[in-house]
């Protein structure tokens, strides 16, 4: 699918980081209140592209689509503290999450490993919403054990020929581009023969199959590659160096999957439901709520330390796993409490477009895969134990 470009109409940015936190918070709040389009707020599942497109457009036009990119490349150049404030204010308003694989994952990766030509071509297309990216990592049989992937790319003249299958792709059906890890050398150690490729979704041989999840949303899909040919230049980094980039991206991903956003959103809904049904003043509930609210605030503090590392280019390291483990488990604990508050009616399935603030079972189900994707909690604990705590195999 080809996306129409959203041309930024903003004047050169002010230096956001020079503002006080309070000033920037007021600015962010005003921005979301004035620019958020007439689309669902507090959406519990990821909105599909046609739904969320107006918000992407509003952000892109204002130059707010890539908060952490440097201003010279069209981002906002926000420091970690200001970025968190932006997230908090968007969250407070219930703004939907836009399709951000391009801004959060691919963009920063291209800035680090891409050629000048790749940066010049792809980065503006992300900012303008011309390319919506999907991440092609997981495969059936190669989820948390990513290095076991079987999709292959074989060099044929000036092209790579890709065969295989990727799964668990968030909003992949909305994307027009995918980055894909593929095996380019079967003769070496499994991590050593992988490359990082950029694949147009409209290339002949690409087939997309939606996957409906437990909540009934087709938020995920599988992509099949059957002799898909892409230009030789659609590789990021060197041939067989994909694992380095996969690891870098996984580090970023685990920082952002560890972001307080999901838990913050769910806690806001928990408070709203408890206030709505009269449970709020119950001392036992208050104690349980306080624990969750304090956990969330501590998670915020921890998240800041990792975002700061990203900003300063400091190594992320294996211990980033603590962030993702705690965020996903906190989200699940909040969803347990939502079920308690909703009682016998916790299972009510709300109509599309309804006020999803009160969908307890939907949140409960939505919280399940967070301890699975991006590396399951169990595998991440194994990695932490060995790589961070230096415990024996």
């Amino acid at each position, binding site marked *: 699918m080809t996306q129409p470009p959203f041309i930024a109409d903003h004047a050169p940015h002010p230096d956001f980081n020079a503002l006080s936190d309070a000033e920037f918070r007021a600015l962010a709040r005003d921005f979301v209140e004035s620019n958020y389009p007439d689309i669902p707020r507090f959406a519990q599942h990821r909105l599909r592209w046609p739904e969320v497109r107006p918000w992407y457009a509003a952000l892109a036009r204002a130059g707010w689509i890539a908060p952490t990119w440097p201003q010279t490349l069209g981002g906002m150049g926000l420091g970690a503290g200001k970025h968190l404030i932006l997230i908090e204010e968007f969250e407070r308003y219930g703004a939907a999450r836009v399709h951000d694989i391009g801004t959060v994952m691919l963009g920063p990766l291209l800035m680090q490993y891409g050629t000048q030509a790749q940066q010049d071509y792809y980065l503006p297309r992300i900012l303008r919403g011309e390319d919506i990216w999907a991440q092609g990592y997981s495969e059936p049989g190669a989820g948390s054990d990513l290095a076991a992937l079987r999709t292959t790319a074989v060099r044929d003249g000036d092209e790579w020929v890709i065969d295989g299958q990727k799964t668990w792709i968030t909003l992949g059906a909305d994307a027009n581009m995918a980055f894909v890890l593929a095996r380019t050398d079967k003769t070496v150690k499994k991590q050593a023969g992988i490359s990082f490729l950029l694949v147009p979704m409209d290339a002949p041989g690409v087939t997309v199959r939606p996957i409906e999840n437990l909540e009934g949303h087709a938020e995920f899909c599988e992509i099949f590659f059957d002799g898909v040919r892409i230009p030789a230049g659609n590789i990021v980094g060197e041939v067989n160096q994909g694992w380095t980039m996969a690891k870098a991206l996984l580090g970023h991903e685990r920082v952002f999957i560890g972001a307080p956003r999901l838990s913050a959103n769910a806690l806001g809904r928990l408070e709203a439901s408890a206030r709505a049904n009269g449970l709020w003043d119950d001392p036992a509930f*208050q104690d349980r709520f306080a624990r969750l609210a304090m956990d969330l605030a501590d998670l915020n503090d921890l998240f800041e330390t990792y975002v700061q590392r990203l900003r300063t280019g400091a190594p992320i390291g294996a211990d980033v796993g603590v962030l993702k483990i705690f965020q996903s488990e906190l989200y699940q604990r909040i969803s347990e409490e939502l079920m308690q508050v909703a009682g016998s009616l916790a299972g009510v399935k709300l109509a599309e477009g309804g006020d999803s603030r009160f969908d307890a079972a939907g949140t409960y189900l939505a919280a399940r895969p967070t301890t699975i994707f991006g590396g399951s909690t169990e595998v991440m604990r194994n990695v*932490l134990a060995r790589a961070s705590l230096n415990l*024996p195999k």
Partner: protein
Amino acid sequence: MHVMDEETTENIRMLCDSASALVPADGSLDRVRAARFQAPGFSRDGWETVAEMGWLGLRASEDAGGMALGLPEAVALVRVLGSGLVPEPYVAATLAIDLLEDAGPHTALDSALTGQDIILPAWQATADGLDPAAGVSVRNGRLSGTKCAVIAGADLYAVTTAEGLALIPRDAGGLTVQAIAMHDGTYRETLTFDEVAVEVHPSTDPVACLARAMVLHAAYLHGAAEQAFDITLEYLRTRQQFDVAIGSFQALQHRATEMKVQLELARASIDAAAASMDVGQLDHAGHMAALRARSRAGELARLVAREAIQMHGAIGYTDEADIGLFARKLVVEAGQFAPEFRLRERFMTHREDAA
């Protein structure tokens, strides 16, 4: 994110180095063992070292003869003291100094800063209380009532009252002191005041002093917990059972990573609290940050204490193994500044007031 400037980083480095005066680099706990169950539970020599190092005046203003450093620097020092289970009541003494400064110029501040007099705070009325005004009352210049959980070893008590701060010598007429032995070899005292003659110095914000002390206390717990964790990890790497190191067992690895998760959350929470509370008046957000840091550290302390004993096996339950000293200290100190459910209650009050 509060990024530290170079000067702060350098101050912290020097302070942490200076901590070797009481925390031996080789991890020896001989001094700590010797002080146990000998009233008041720490040594006067140790206290002289604390004073000589200038730590007592770390945060005190330069006018008062202090170094005027910030809470982040104090947190860094206290973490090291915690890692060495230093029994000298440094955090309590800095709370007393903070309360003294808060109550205006006072000659006692000099003797507290030089270490000449050990002044410790008596602020708590009940074991789960957080109100510094509770427990005592002043009428016609006479103080009556009780304070509990006072750390033993004071020459003078800094007693918080609804009217302000009262300084009362240990041997004041009308004061009865009852000491109780704690499991870590230190002592706490219950003070009963019966018409004790006092001069009261009006306080401005004793609750803010408590909040800062809470963060330092959390840092002590964090330092001790982290050291106990490191000792336990080393044990997991070396102790063999069924012909392999027990640290290779996934069940233990996963529980070890949970301690790591909680340690990192506590570190982030404490450091952010210290940085955010360091400037200006303490607002609701500052109080909430302190309550969080202390809550997280208290639960961390008990988690690490119980896992350290379990992972060491029966040796962890013996007095001769050093890990037991950590377990005892952690469970004793974990409860200071009121239990977590009270801290959460207070957190929610601030949250409502801030909204």
